[in-house]
């Protein structure tokens, strides 16, 4: 089926936007998103915007001049106005600096999520409102739909392999009411085929990969090493405390990591179970030691408020712990002893997995989905 953009992404078409700012990264998804909006709203009511987010070197992603050129030329082809907004200072303050600071403290922040939280669905949304737009559209593979009760739901994209609801799980009603995901109901193949049919120059562009502000030839180690002191540390057995060797930089090690950790005396692979930067210590153990019964979350957000809890004070959810991780059943409750929330919002939660799962690194996000409606995001939080 050919989607016609915003009007099929909602069951309440009559109240939907009349004027839309579409964020165009220069990739195929946002190009087709823009094309669909133009088809449904007309070129006069659609304006494209590319965000300049990173002033430093990068391969591609959202920042390079080549991507801006692609976005602008697609906009030209579609007959829409295109702007470039320079949000580099906000990006540095809200995404890059916390990414660097997190690693320096042994955490592994997800920069895409923070970019969505602070840039695309805050700064850009605010700018769009200021400029008189009713909504911001992006090329994310997710769906924002309005239920008969008038509440917005955030659903997984139709293409399971490309679903991006995880990186949008921090969105709430205020944002979803002003967001459109025109390609969320399509598969990537459909999007590419449509781009080919429309003759869009971005039709064959590869998907963006990795962290957009880190050049592949510099790598994470080089990027972080330019910005914070990296410290060598010791590798320690989780059970015995035995010293197992050296690690080059504790700041570059992530909880759950296998690569570079070698094998135990029994020949099984070792996993990182903890990173203690001040102590310059990386703790490793066998696979079963890398499992966690659950996690505590801060910076909690809800798509539509906290779900009602059962008599035991918990509600059931499916937890997804990485962008394309497998959702697993869990019980979620208000943390009885919440840490001070570093971002100042939301309540701390504790998530108990039904069966122990691979430990999630501090700083990573857990997205919660509704077990009765497994495509529907309930909320999210960051692992403490």
């Amino acid at each position: 089926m050919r989607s016609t953009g915003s009007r099929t992404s909602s069951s309440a078409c009559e109240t939907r936007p009349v004027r839309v700012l579409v964020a165009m990264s220069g990739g195929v998804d946002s190009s087709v998103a823009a094309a669909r909006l133009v088809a449904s709203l007309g070129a006069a009511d659609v304006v494209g915007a590319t965000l300049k987010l990173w002033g430093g070197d990068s391969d591609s992603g959202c920042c390079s001049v080549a991507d801006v050129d692609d976005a602008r030329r697609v906009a030209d082809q579609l007959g829409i106005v295109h702007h470039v907004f320079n949000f580099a200072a906000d990006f540095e303050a809200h995404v890059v600096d916390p990414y660097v600071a997190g690693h320096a403290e042994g955490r592994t922040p997800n920069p895409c999520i923070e970019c969505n939280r602070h840039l695309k669905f805050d700064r850009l949304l605010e700018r769009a409102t200021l400029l008189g737009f009713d909504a911001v559209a992006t090329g994310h593979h997710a769906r924002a739909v309005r239920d008969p009760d008038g509440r917005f739901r955030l659903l997984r994209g139709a293409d399971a392999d490309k679903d991006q609801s995880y990186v949008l799980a921090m969105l709430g009603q205020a944002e979803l009411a002003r967001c459109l995901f025109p390609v969320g109901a399509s598969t990537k193949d459909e999007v590419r085929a449509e781009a080919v049919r429309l003759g869009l120059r971005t039709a064959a562009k590869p998907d963006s990969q990795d962290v957009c502000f880190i050049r592949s030839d510099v790598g994470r180690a080089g990027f972080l090493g330019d910005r914070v002191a990296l410290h060598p540390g010791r590798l320690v057995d989780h059970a015995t405390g035995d010293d197992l060797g050296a690690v080059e930089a504790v700041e570059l090690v992530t909880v759950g990591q296998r690569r570079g950790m070698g094998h135990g005396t029994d020949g099984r692979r070792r996993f990182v179970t903890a990173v203690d930067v001040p102590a310059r210590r990386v703790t490793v153990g066998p696979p079963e030691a890398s499992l966690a019964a659950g996690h505590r979350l801060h910076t909690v957000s809800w798509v539509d408020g906290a779900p009602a809890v059962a008599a035991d004070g918990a509600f059931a959810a499916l937890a997804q712990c990485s962008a394309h991780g497998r959702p697993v059943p869990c019980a979620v409750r208000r943390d009885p002893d919440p840490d001070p929330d570093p971002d100042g919002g939301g309540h701390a939660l504790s998530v108990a997995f039904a069966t122990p799962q691979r430990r999630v690194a501090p700083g990573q996000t857990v997205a919660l989905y509704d077990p009765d409606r497994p495509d529907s995001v309930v909320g999210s939080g960051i692992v403490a």
Partner: protein
Amino acid sequence: MTAVRPDAGRRAYFDHAATTPLRPEALEAMLPFLTAEFANPSGAHAESRRARMALDDARDRIAELLGAGPGDVVLTSGGTEADDLAVQGGWDAAWGGGPDGPGAVVCAAMEHHAVLEACRALARRTGAELRLVPSDADGLVDLGALADACDPGVRLVSVMTVNNELGTVQPLADVARVAGERCPSALLHTDAVQAVPWLDAAAVTAPADLVSVSAHKFGGPKGSGALVLRRGAAVRPRIGGGGQERGRRSGTPNVAGAVGTAAALAATVAERGSTVARVRALRDRLGDGLAGRLCGVTESGRREDRVAGILHLRLDGVESEALVVLLDEAGIAASAGAACSSGAVEPSHVLASLGLGPEAASSGVRFSLGGTSTDEDVDHALDRVPHVVERLRN
């Protein structure tokens, strides 16, 4: 709401400091060299001789109007190349391989990127120390700081004639005096790109050894500019090849560009007096009108220090990047500072050089008028701008 659509209805162009429309005199002068008189001026045949004569005539005229001899004018692809040739080529010709170590280069922090980047590249390449001189709150280079930056080790000083964002006319004679006292052997370069439409460029740039101009800022074609050499200043070429421009800038001469530049310059100089008076009145009416209709508006630089065409405002609580988008939709072409290669608005280094913080430095908008600006343009702006600003503040 009913938004005003971009490119619909009346539009007023307030971005002459970015570029100006081609003057009819320039177009007319250029057309033969874009059509029948296409020859390469370096050839040994009649067709070439005609092109050569046109090129030499154009150079004579440009030189005369800029107060130089024809042999002292290097035609370039524009202001940026002229700046690079002056800073890097001028340095190399005077100091290249000198025995006394790398020395220092001094330039105003508010210089155009063409000069700033040329100075940075020079510093990287030669090991010279780059010293940036801040501005005072009125957008004039700080002469005290300049004096502090200048010592006998300084080999090149570059201060623009007119700042492109604020329109402030820099005290070039004072700059030359300070440099002459503190670093007498240094070359003095001035980027006069924004001066030509408004000032007697030959007179105001007389203290400088090297002077850059760009044709499209005064009704000439894009892709054409010149570097003027005074008092025997020389440049080492930055582009080698066939040895055109007396070996100082290789490449087939842009005959049509040179002819258009000369025609536009002649017309600009001939009409300057009346144009300046008329545009200044328009600019002041716009500035006064906006000040009367809006609160929280600060006009940058004193009017008596500024060229006639530029009105730079700082608007409390307004992000200029959003403002120019809404002004565009309201039919007004204005500028929010320097645009980078991707088209994004860069935070203004000029406003930063005045000591303004990031918020104030991102609240600036420039309305730049030109010879084709009209009373109707100003009326249109006075009608639309207050509405747009109020909307952004609500």
